């Protein structure tokens, strides 16, 4: 039996390899070597610190409204890890982890949230779309791109990120249906972080799991512990291989928790009590990986200090570089609207310049 059969959503089991105490499930086998695990742990620490810096910059007025990843690092690092060059990523708006894993620079990432669209320009060769704010809309794009690859005979896969809230959108259901009908090489990765702003998962859908929605569309779904890096990697790896081999889409529900606010504009104390967060704290993806690495003799306080200091230094430097980028010239907001600036736009730009 394969993973997808073993964890068929209607069996009511969540796939987990690494338990919260840092030990492996009976029979559980890590998909990584020790060194690979340490490297990904380091990446997750970096992501968390870069995310926290974004939050603090926003509070100081140096950043726009920001949607933090805090708590969802394993979902994003684990699900991008099995991707290969040429694969495409369609994020929502909380994907600092996926972005950095795909090779988007932190400077670019920061630039965008500082209010400069140039930050949305992915470097050549990195197939990651800009942030998608209209919830769930990007799921269809991931299907379309995968479909195009299939038509062209390219052996690539696409992955769409979205949250539990997005599963209520028509776009999501249309995307799932198209993917099922046309067997597109698409991975639907739902980061079920339990909240769509203030609305809890229980009010979002009457389905017992999000994973089970895949069944209605005729393809595999699996619920994984989204705070378990190993489980996320294993499930995504299987989905990616399946998609690449022509066997169609998969829906992965990563069960995780949004430790932070929805965005910096949100005050979660209005709808979430501190006690509700408590049970999730020991499930933190970084805590569990740290315990595992400690058990393998690869982690101690010194390692943590070194990793943290290195990360903070790089983040300091990046903030400096991003803030040193000058405010874009006025032409910038006109020149990318079309391949060639249209006469009305030229006229409007000239007028605007004359008023500055």
């Amino acid at each position, binding site marked *: 039996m394969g993973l997808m059969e073993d964890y068929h959503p209607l069996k009511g089991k969540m796939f987990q390899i690494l338990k919260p105490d840092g030990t492996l499930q009976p029979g559980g086998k890590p998909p990584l070597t020790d060194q690979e695990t340490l490297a990904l742990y380091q990446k997750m620490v970096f992501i968390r610190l870069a995310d926290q810096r974004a939050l603090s910059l926003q509070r100081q007025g140096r950043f726009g409204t920001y949607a933090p990843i805090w708590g969802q690092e394993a979902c994003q690092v684990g699900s991008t890890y099995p991707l290969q060059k040429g694969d495409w990523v369609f994020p929502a708006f909380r994907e600092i982890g996926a972005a950095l894993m795909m090779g988007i620079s932190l400077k670019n990432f920061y630039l965008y949230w500082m209010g400069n*669209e140039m930050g949305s320009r992915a470097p050549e060769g990195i197939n990651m779309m800009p942030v998608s704010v209209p919830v769930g809309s990007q799921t269809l794009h991931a299907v379309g791109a995968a479909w195009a690859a299939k038509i062209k005979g390219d052996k690539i896969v696409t992955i769409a990120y979205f949250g539990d809230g997005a599963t209520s959108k028509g776009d999501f259901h249309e995307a799932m249906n198209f993917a099922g009908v046309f067997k597109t090489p698409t991975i639907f990765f739902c980061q079920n972080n339990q909240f769509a*702003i203030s609305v809890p998962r229980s009010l979002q859908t009457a389905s017992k799991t999000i994973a089970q929605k895949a069944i209605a569309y005729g393809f595999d779904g699996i619920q994984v512990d989204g705070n378990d890096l190993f489980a996320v990697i294993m499930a995504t790896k299987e989905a990616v291989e399946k998609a690449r081999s022509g066997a169609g889409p998969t829906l992965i529900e990563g069960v995780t928790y949004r430790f932070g606010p929805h965005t910096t504009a949100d005050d979660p104390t209005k709808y979430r009590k501190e006690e509700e967060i408590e049970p999730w704290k020991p499930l933190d993806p970084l805590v569990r990986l740290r315990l595992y690495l400690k058990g393998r003799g690869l982690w101690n306080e010194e390692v943590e200090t070194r990793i943290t200091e290195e990360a903070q230094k790089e983040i300091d430097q990046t903030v400096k570089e991003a803030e040193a980028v000058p405010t874009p010239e006025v032409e910038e907001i006109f020149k990318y609207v079309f391949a060639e600036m249209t006469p009305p736009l030229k006229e409007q730009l000239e007028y605007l310049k004359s008023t500055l």
Partner: protein
Amino acid sequence: MAEGDRTMAKLNMVEAINLALREEMERDNRAVILGEDVGKEGGVFRVTDGLQAKFGADRVIDTPLAEAGIVGSAFGMAVYGLRPIAEIQFEGFLYPCLDQINNHIGRIRNRSRGRFTCPLVIRLPYGGGIHAPEHHSDSPEAILAHIPGIKVVIPSTPYEAKGLLFSAIRDPDPVIFFEPKRIYRAIREEVPEGDYTIPLGKARLVQEGKDVTMVVWGAMVREALNAAEQLKADKIEAEIIDLRTISPIDSETIVTSIRKTGRGVIVHEAPKTCGLGAEIIALINEKALLSLQAPIERVTGFDIPVPLMKTEHYYLPNPKRIILAVKRVMSF
């Protein structure tokens, strides 16, 4: 403070709308509120704060995250006999609702020859100027005004918001109620408790002036007032008309003013092409062409997506651009 036996309080627009919703929910038990985060959280801008606690989760409903679902269900509720007040969290999330608005909400009365009607309100914060993320700064009012069977209302002050919202909820037809989020908390004024309505389809003369007519709505009223104040130094007296309702438009008030001043400047945040400014100019041409001393000027956003915060200031109409336009029409 009191005016007669009414209690008056200085409220901002968020508080004024909240008060209107609360009073209307008390008055009319058919009124229900539905939307994303409107219940427990009280809305992302706190417009529905405290209402779920007061009226219960059956009347102030946190829906799943689906704008077309919210508006399509509101249609069903309205047809059945409720008075739904739907909230779309930001104007950028309105677009999935256009199918329901254009194809059903705006035409059910006409299609059923009056048998079925759809008295609902869709409230939505709109417009730029708050350094918001992408898709949180659009001004799509002209898109809605272009749809038959839909009324479109845009308040410009807290007092106006309360009176217009009462009228919108009680209107027998569907109303889109755009709330200029930039001035949600920027203006405080006395707003009475209790009932008063401001009729839909009637513009407001904000200030009289003999030289030039400014036609504005929403957050641009404040910009126009600012520009008009500065223009006094040049001995230019601007008349300011706050449209309040952009569909149906109050052409009479506009035309009366243009006949007096002979000059006009229209200001809107929305892109220039096919913006409401073009419609207003056409109305003036139809009804008051011979009164014109100069071509009407438009001060608008541009035909580009609203930029993010680093460059948003380039986009938004401001008093400086309004003054330049006024001087051009004055010196034509």
